[in-house]
């Protein structure tokens, strides 16, 4: 599909950019205090969120793209 190929090309470009450009991460690990707060999490309760997604899945035609979490304290 065209979408797939565009995606792949975009990702390739992203890789070269990240690897070659040398842009420094602008948020240091010791500045991530606010990001580690639970209110900054997209999903806090896997069971409850899964149930709510199921309720919508059964009644709505749209599904997918509910997301995997990043951010957080970035420790380790």
């Amino acid at each position: 599909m065209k979408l797939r190929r565009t995606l792949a090309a975009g990702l390739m470009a992203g890789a070269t950019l990240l690897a070659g450009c040398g842009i420094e991460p602008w948020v240091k690990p010791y500045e991530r205090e606010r990001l580690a707060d639970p209110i900054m999490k997209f999903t806090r309760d896997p069971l409850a969120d899964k149930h709510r997604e199921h309720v919508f899945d059964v009644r709505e035609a749209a599904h997918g793209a509910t997301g995997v979490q990043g951010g957080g304290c970035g420790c380790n």
Partner: protein
Amino acid sequence: MNLRLLSYAPRTAAIIALWLAAAASQSAASALTSGPAPDFTLHSMAGSNLRLMEQRGQVVMLNFWASWCGPCRVEMPRLNRLYQKYHASGFQLLGVNVDDDIRNAAGVSSKLGLQFPVLLDTEKTVSRLYDLSTMPSTVLIDRDGRVRYVHLGYKDGYEQTYEEQIKELLRE
């Protein structure tokens, strides 16, 4: 099922794997790994000022931590035990806290019963000086003030490595 779609799959996977490889190959840690330990003075939680240079002659461990960092909280009691065991032999442990609000640092410190000095780096000057790239980070400095070992992050079992390295530096 659109079979044409799937024929792109191995190619797409190869491209994505390449991307991840390129992105991940960026050097993860550019923190201090050797040379003289940069000097600094920080306010400690006990109230007094503490200067790194004054610890010359002792083996110093700098541990950068924060109240919001999970692995840091797991590591602390183990570091506390190391401090109690080796302090008399010339081992100094300095906990450098990077919390914005010192009350959070004080809370965790009293809850875990930390015996070693906790220095407050709210302005993040020492974190920048040591090019802190991971939370937590542990830096081992020998009696001459040189950086000997750097540990990034904390996982179960690291404290055993710390103990071996402390003993080695104490013997020098």
